């Protein structure tokens, strides 16, 4: 049965450009599942999408508590989408706690669909409600739809053998069915997902399908909704195969693609930590690509093992989040000194210290650039969105191998777990990845092998294949003589090596494109962004541009080194706005490097920046 086509009398049908929906419920309520399946249905409907999953820190806080609320926000539109959306158009609240925690995000007159069955005295109390908000008029400014979700599920499954727990657990599919009806998403794709999920468990399969369709039918048949919405497909993007992808998945794929291209097996040393662990999980299953994952005893062992593997010739990677990154710094310094290629992924989360493990933030920039003892410069790149994490990762590998150095990738919680459509690259079209490999001792000069001799262009030292006769060499963390790599305590040599290591970083800029500016290269306000604030900044700038303002946007993919034409660009605007989810870290880096006037806009709330805030900031900086 295809329920994509409705047979009931057609209600008012409104066509929208863009919709933001949010599912919210208990951690056990399957909100992430409902959200990601609606995402899939939306991308297959041809919309552009962006998502923002919002987990609780507890594994499973007691059901019904505020601490246990799990949310999933989905933005889908007929136009390009760069953010998960500021204000929610439709909120599904599975219980009072979910309502209490999320109602702030719903726009005035937004649709509010609640599971009335959960609004019991106990549920209300756990959510901290003195009065039932469904009855006390406090929700008057929203369009409230009260649905007896639990009861409706029970009804839908009356004929089955399912226990009451399993019935209760299926209610996310009812909500999903209803939302799919409301926004005219096809059910087929969800049905396929359910089929895959419950393979081998026919009774659960049937039950969940029944509930899903029940949700749809409820929308269709009940008198509750007098309106349905259509969001027409976005204009077809570049031709190709598309898929939906999260940032963590994209990193894993980027690594594998780079590994295949470079002809080097991946060694992935990691210690689990939220929100980075999924990269380990994704790679652990990819042994057919020669991926060796190593769950180390701690972060230090993880990075050290990776460094050992790098010395051995592997494509070495380590992966963590903020606190783990702090622990790895001493060993990253060793990578700097030994000039070995190493990719370090830091999926930033709220801090300081343990902080807010499940929330996003972009406050590890200074730690990445400067957080080691002594002058220990490391290249830093940041993806701007989930799908872009593929490219950023791929580039990180390129640079690490070409220049023989550690490279830090700064992702964050929003990118890691957020999802968006991605045009899958053709493996045959991937950019080349080269390394200064050295696998024979032939052609060495009189002095034999010089592990610290350099390629004049890349400044890379040779990557000798261990096991090759005649290439034996010894490396370590003590200062070394240029050329021989022998230990050196000489003053001048030390100064020169310190300067050289910095030059190796600066030199990367010669291999990178200049600034890619959205808008004119001069004007009133230049918005500079990095990482996951890309989408919000771009959207805000575009809106200002449409309003005829002289505002441009430049997004920095590489944070160290910075693009060579950035200084000039910054000076070409009356003022510069640098919005960040930290206290102005990129702003400090830019100030230290260039002469320009600017403003730092910061909000560190564990959530993506809102387009509206940025619009207001830009507005305030424009000449009146």
């Amino acid at each position: 049965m295809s329920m994509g086509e409705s047979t009931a009398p057609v209600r008012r049908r409104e066509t929208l450009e863009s919709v933001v929906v949010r599912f919210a419920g208990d951690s056990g309520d399957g909100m992430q599942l409902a959200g990601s399946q609606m995402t899939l249905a939306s991308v297959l409907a041809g919309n552009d999408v962006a998502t923002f999953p919002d987990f609780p820190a507890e594994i499973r806080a007691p059901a019904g508590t505020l601490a246990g609320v799990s949310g999933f926000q989905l933005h889908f539109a007929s136009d390009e989408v760069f953010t998960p959306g500021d204000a929610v158009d439709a909120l599904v609240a599975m219980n009072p706690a979910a309502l209490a925690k999320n109602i702030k995000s719903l726009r005035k007159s937004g649709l509010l669909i609640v599971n009335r069955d959960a609004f019991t005295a106990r549920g209300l109390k756990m959510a901290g409600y003195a009065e039932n908000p469904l009855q006390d008029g406090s929700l008057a400014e929203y369009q409230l739809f009260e649905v007896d979700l639990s009861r409706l599920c029970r009804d839908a499954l009356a004929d089955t053998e399912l226990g009451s727990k399993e019935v209760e657990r299926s209610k996310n599919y009812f909500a999903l069915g209803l939302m799919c009806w409301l926004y005219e998403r096809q059910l087929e794709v969800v049905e396929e997902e359910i089929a895959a999920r419950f393979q081998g468990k026919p009774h659960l399969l049937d039950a969940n399908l029944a509930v899903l369709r029940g949700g749809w039918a409820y929308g269709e048949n009940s008198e509750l909704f007098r309106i349905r919405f259509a969001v027409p497909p976005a204009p077809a993007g570049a031709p190709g195969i598309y898929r939906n992808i999260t940032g963590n998945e994209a990193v894993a794929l980027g690594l594998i693609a780079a590994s295949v291209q470079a002809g080097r097996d991946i060694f992935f040393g990691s210690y689990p930590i939220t929100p980075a662990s999924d990269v380990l999980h994704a790679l652990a299953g990819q042994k057919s690509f020669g991926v060796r994952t190593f769950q180390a005893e701690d972060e230090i062992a993880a990075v050290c093992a990776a460094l050992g593997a790098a010395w051995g010739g592997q494509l070495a990677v380590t992966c963590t989040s903020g606190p783990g990154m702090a622990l790895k710094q001493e060993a990253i310094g060793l990578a700097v000194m030994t000039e070995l290629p190493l990719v370090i992924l830091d999926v930033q989360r709220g801090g300081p210290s343990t902080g807010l493990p499940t929330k996003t933030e972009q406050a590890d920039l200074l730690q990445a650039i400067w957080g080691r003892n002594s002058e220990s410069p490391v290249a830093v790149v940041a993806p701007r969105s989930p799908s872009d994490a593929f490219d950023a990762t791929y580039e990180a590998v390129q640079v690490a191998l070409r220049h023989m150095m550690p490279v830090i990738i700064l992702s964050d919680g929003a990118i890691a777990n957020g999802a968006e459509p991605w045009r899958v690259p053709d493996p045959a079209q991937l950019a080349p990845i080269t390394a200064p490999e050295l696998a024979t001792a032939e052609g060495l000069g009189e002095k034999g092998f010089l592990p610290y001799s350099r390629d004049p262009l890349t400044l890379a030292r040779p990557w000798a294949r261990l096991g090759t006769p005649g290439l034996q060499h010894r490396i370590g963390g003590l200062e070394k003589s240029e050329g021989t790599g022998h230990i050196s305590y000489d003053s001048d040599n030390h100064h020169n090596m310190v300067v050289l290591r910095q030059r190796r970083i600066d030199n990367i800029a010669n291999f990178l494109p200049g600034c890619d500016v959205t808008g004119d290269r001069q004007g009133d306000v230049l918005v500079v962004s990095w990482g996951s604030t890309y989408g919000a900044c771009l959207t805000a700038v575009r809106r200002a541009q449409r309003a005829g303002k002289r505002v441009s946007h430049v997004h920095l993919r590489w944070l160290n080194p910075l693009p060579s034409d950035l200084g000039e660009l910054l000076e070409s605007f009356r003022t510069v706005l640098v919005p960040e989810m930290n206290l102005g870290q990129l702003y400090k880096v830019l100030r230290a490097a260039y002469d320009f006037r600017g403003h730092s806009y910061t909000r560190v709330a564990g959530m993506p920046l809102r387009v509206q805030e940025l619009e207001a900031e830009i507005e305030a900086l424009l000449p009146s």
Partner: protein
Amino acid sequence: MDQATPRTFKAKDFASDQDVRWCPGCGDYAILSAVHKALAIQGIAPESIAFVSGIGCSSRFPYYMSTYGFHTIHGRAPAVATGLKIGRPDLQVWLVTGDGDALSIGGNHLIHVLRRNVDIKILLFNNRIYGLTKGQYSPTSEFGKKTKSTPLGSVDHPFSPLVVGLGAEATFLARAIDVDAPVLGEVLAATAAHQGSAYVEILQNCNIFNDGAWDTLSAKESRADALLHLRHGQPMVFGRARDKGIVLRGLRPEVVTLGEGGLSEADCWVHDAHDPDPTRAFILARMWAPALPVPVGVLRAVQRPCYDAAVNAQVATARATPGDLHKLLVGRKNWTVS
């Protein structure tokens, strides 16, 4: 290099051209030369061997080897070596460390490498002191030791390196002393031959900051009475006149004089290095002077799957059907825009 001719090696083929910079008289010299010799006998080419170390006097070792070498950071050599060995199972990986490097800052990596049984040969130079940082006590220093950092005497109960190894499920445990070249050579040969983590405590004299730490064990006169040279399958007999033996009473090893009370070699505890149960090794590892002779030689050598081999086996199996990048990238759900 002509791969056809089998190569034979001399000890000096394993020495690098770097000046050795230990203090004159340091026990490390004897160990270095024993390792050069053992590798020559083993007959694996220098380029097929990698030495990894941490930081400390002992950890300077790789510079003096003609093999591949990595002088890493303090305490982390086991982790670096693990990564290397997983990626490059074809290389023979040795690790050189000190009592501080291995058991103080590096304790966790040490116990994890042993637990995993990564195929790495670990030489722990135990001089019961921090040499490189000029004389603080270490986790093997005796209780009450006065050092720069413990002017009134340390109040730390020391580790026994080999007992720590047993706590960590080590498959190979051995001990030797710097000055006793024959036992050291024998132990190094067994170490080279073991598959899995081979963990060796080498008692080493730091003549600058802890001179004489092992005097009772190393002095030519007392050595035979103070050390028990273990040999698999042999009864435990020792003493200058080989007139003493070890018997096991219940769970307790005791010294007996052979010939007295009708006791002969045949009554002595027979060494079984291959016993899968580590209890024997635990008893041996805890035997200590002066009450008992200190065992040297191979205390335990049993087989258990190596982590690195198992990882590579999983990869090899999976690779029988090599990954298809296109298939991986497009994933399970996708759509086409044309």
